[in-house]
């Protein structure tokens, strides 16, 4: 237990260092972007018929939430606020706290990412076992081929393809929102069904993207376990095939748990492209909008949250692995 706590403390310290580094890096990076938050708005006001002087004055008020202090002072202030869990106020949202804006977006990234990840893990691993056991048959070959294909497709290509097929061409699935806005939110079948329908395309994209790598990794892992002595011994002792499969599966899936935790972080980062294609209003979509709007606090907050997710996922992966595989603890 003491060893576990020590490892946990070390991981947390490393994680905090990582978060601090990323927070520092992103702070200066986002401020180095050319342009400023009011530029696009100014053009919009002028194109809408507002005299330029008024447009400038309006931008100064409505987007006037930018600090004009020296960058280093801003950075120190930012770190100080960060220690109190305060990410500042959004510029493009005219002073709404960044935490409020992010809070509205986070569920719509967490839900599809976790659903897609779980689905891809379950289907991919199961298919991987089948592909390994039947590696010399046609079905095994086809499964392996499907895994290789899916592992090689870029996320945005897959997302665009699904959007085109299921919305533009056949119009069987909606996109562009989290649910039908005419249905009142609540724990009702109608609302949950609407949420589920709207999440199908992003979830399917995450699931299909992960499927290939899970399948191939699981196939490889099962193939190596199949050659282990204990499997031969089990076979010789006449243990039922279903039980043998359970032995194989449990031993083969072990290394995949680490990857599973790491994948959470990767999928969070990948949400930027996928949410953009489906206009799904999660954290990735918010991050893109904040970059376009040069909303530095919002950009910093979204980057930071994605970073923290990846760091936490890494720590969990390592701790999980040490729990499920005692050899790591030695």
């Amino acid at each position, binding site marked *: 237990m003491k060893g576990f706590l020590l490892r946990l403390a070390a991981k947390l310290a490393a994680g905090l260092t990582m978060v601090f580094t990323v927070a520092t890096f992103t702070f200066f990076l986002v401020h180095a972007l050319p342009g400023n938050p009011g530029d696009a708005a100014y053009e919009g006001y002028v194109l809408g018929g507002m005299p330029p002087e008024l447009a*400038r*004055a*309006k931008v100064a008020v409505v987007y006037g939430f930018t600090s004009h202090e020296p960058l280093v002072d801003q950075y120190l202030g930012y770190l100080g606020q960060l220690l109190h869990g305060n990410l500042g106020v959004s510029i493009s949202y005219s002073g*709404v706290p960044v935490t409020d804006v992010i809070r509205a977006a986070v569920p719509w990234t967490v839900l599809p990412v976790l659903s897609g990840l779980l689905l891809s893990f379950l289907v991919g691993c199961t298919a991987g076992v089948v592909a390994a056991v039947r590696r010399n048959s046609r079905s095994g070959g086809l499964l392996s081929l499907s895994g290789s294909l899916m592992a090689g497709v870029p996320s945005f290509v897959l997302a665009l393809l699904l959007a085109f097929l299921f919305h533009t061409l056949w119009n069987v699935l909606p996109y562009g929102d989290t649910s039908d806005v005419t249905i009142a939110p609540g724990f009702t079948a109608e609302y949950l069904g609407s949420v589920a329908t709207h999440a199908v395309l992003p979830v399917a994209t995450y699931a299909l993207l992960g499927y290939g790598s899970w399948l191939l990794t699981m196939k490889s892992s099962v193939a190596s376990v199949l050659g282990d002595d204990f499997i031969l011994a089990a076979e010789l002792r006449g243990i039922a095939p279903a039980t043998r499969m359970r032995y194989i599966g449990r031993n083969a899936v072990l290394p995949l748990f680490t990857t599973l935790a790491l994948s959470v972080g990767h999928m969070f980062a990948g949400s930027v492209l996928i949410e953009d294609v489906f206009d799904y209003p999660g954290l990735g979509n918010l991050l893109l909008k904040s970059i376009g709007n040069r909303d530095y606090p919002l950009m910093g907050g979204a980057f930071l949250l994605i970073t923290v997710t990846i760091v936490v996922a890494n720590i969990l992966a390592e701790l999980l692995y040490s729990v499920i595989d005692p050899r790591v603890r030695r």
Partner: protein
Amino acid sequence: MKNARRAALPLAAALLLGGTAACSPGAGSSDSAGGGTFTTIDGNHPISAGAPMNPFNAAGNTFLGYDTMQLGFTKKNPQDPNDFFPGLARSWKTTDTSITVELEPDAKWSDGTPVTVEDVRASMAIALTQGSATVGAGLLTQGLDVAEVEETAPHTYEISQVPGAKNIQFPRLVLTQKIVPASVYGSLLPADVWDVIHASQSADPARADAAKAAVDRLGEIGKKVSAFAPAKDVSAGPFVITRVNPGSAVLDRNPHFFAADKIGPKQVVVRNYTGNEQIWSYMTNGELDAAPFTAIPDNVLQRILKAGNQRVDAINYVDAAIAFNQGVAPFDKVEVRQALAHVIDREAVTKVGQPVGGTPSKATTGLIDKVAEKWLTPEQQAGLDPYRHDEAKAAELLQRAGLTKKDGTWHLPDGTPWTITLQTVNGFSDWIAGGTVVANQLTAFGIPTKTALTADFSTYKKEMADGKYPVGFWLTALGPGTDAAFQRLYGADDGFTAIGATVTHKSGRGSGNWLNTPASFTLDGATVNPGELTAKLTVLEPEEQKEIVQQLALLSNQQVPVIQIWDYTNVQFVNDKRFTDFPKSGQDGLLSNSPGVWMMQGYVQPKKK
């Protein structure tokens, strides 16, 4: 379609962590409410998840003409800035110093309380906290500059301008302010807000510090107003927001709206959008009853029309142009700019760049063609140089500017080969496509030209302001007012600044925007300062503007600070599957407003089954 959607539901449910097994159809916009739900996209206003229902918030989820009301809605009449559709104001009268507004006597908020003078007064005060006022009223004021709001008779209010100010836009500015309930927003304003406003309006140099302090204080109040998040929408428009999702909003008919009998739809759903493709996709599926203008290629147009959408065209007071940094040689020479105008075949460029929503510009005047026709005499129009595609003329002009052609390519007077980089912006598909054609035409003429893409519009503006682009695409000829159009060529971005009654010019050769225009020209033997002339347009009545507009148009045609390529057309789409009685092409004033304003005028009625 419905069956297919139902079939997808169990799959969806299974995907979501053991979600529900039985679900109803999800997206109801196209099928719901028996034609009672009007689905659209607000082209000026995407939905912002987490933003408040506050019209003063930059990302606020409110919708002009649906829930958010003004006293009137502009018809964008280029020769009468005060031509309006009635909003909360039934009628209005203007004088040199004020506007008297008669409110709709039955105007009520969605909570059933009447719209009163307190609401108008609070709304004007809020408007003045939002950067709408001119600091230190003077000859060249452009601001709202409200001095008082006084009730002169039941439902009638006089809104007066600051003494000494003369802004022909004052009535327009008053009528287009958002009117919000004092019961919701009034508490954000300090009791002495009008004292602060009056202090900020002082033109007395002795009280300049107090004015500055008052302006700062107004700015602070303005920020508080912008960040405010009302618990619910209280509106005086035909609809009131019921719910805002992260990607759409639903508004239900406001039973207290003063002209509720005119409003056809029972409900409005406003969808989010992130790009043109999304809007095209919704239209192709027949999901939108009305769609805003988007740049659109011809094949997509055919697909959209085939899906049962109808195109409605209206005037659009904006033009795509190629602009020059006149601080960079050889673009400082007028002959060079004129030569390039002769090389570029605008018709061919428009055909590729904006085949659906663009018309090749007839001539560069600083105005779109339809506006220029209204201001210039037939003789003046005939005298404009259209810069027809004429390579021989272009070659002659370049030679006159000292350039030479060797081995098929043009060389600068110092002998170095002349190449051009034409800048466009990522995401502006029409500029990118048009820019490629321009580059090919110039290259074929002997000026090797490549296009370059800037990552996004913010970067484009920043780098443009830093003078990094010698040649690039830009939007000009803004309107409907001629002052806005010429501000684009001879305004603040060109170094012309109006302070009080004086226009100063900051010389910015080599720095600043590409529209780096000199401060004086000779036109018909007289010296003219385009910055001064442009600034004067803001204080002259339309009939007094004519001579200046003509001078500036002729000057722009002669000097070619930009080459106008195409005038945009406001191409919108409507779908009469569920509703009928939409505005028709040519109803420019109506089509420049949101469908909510159409509905207030009695348009958009449910289709009889």
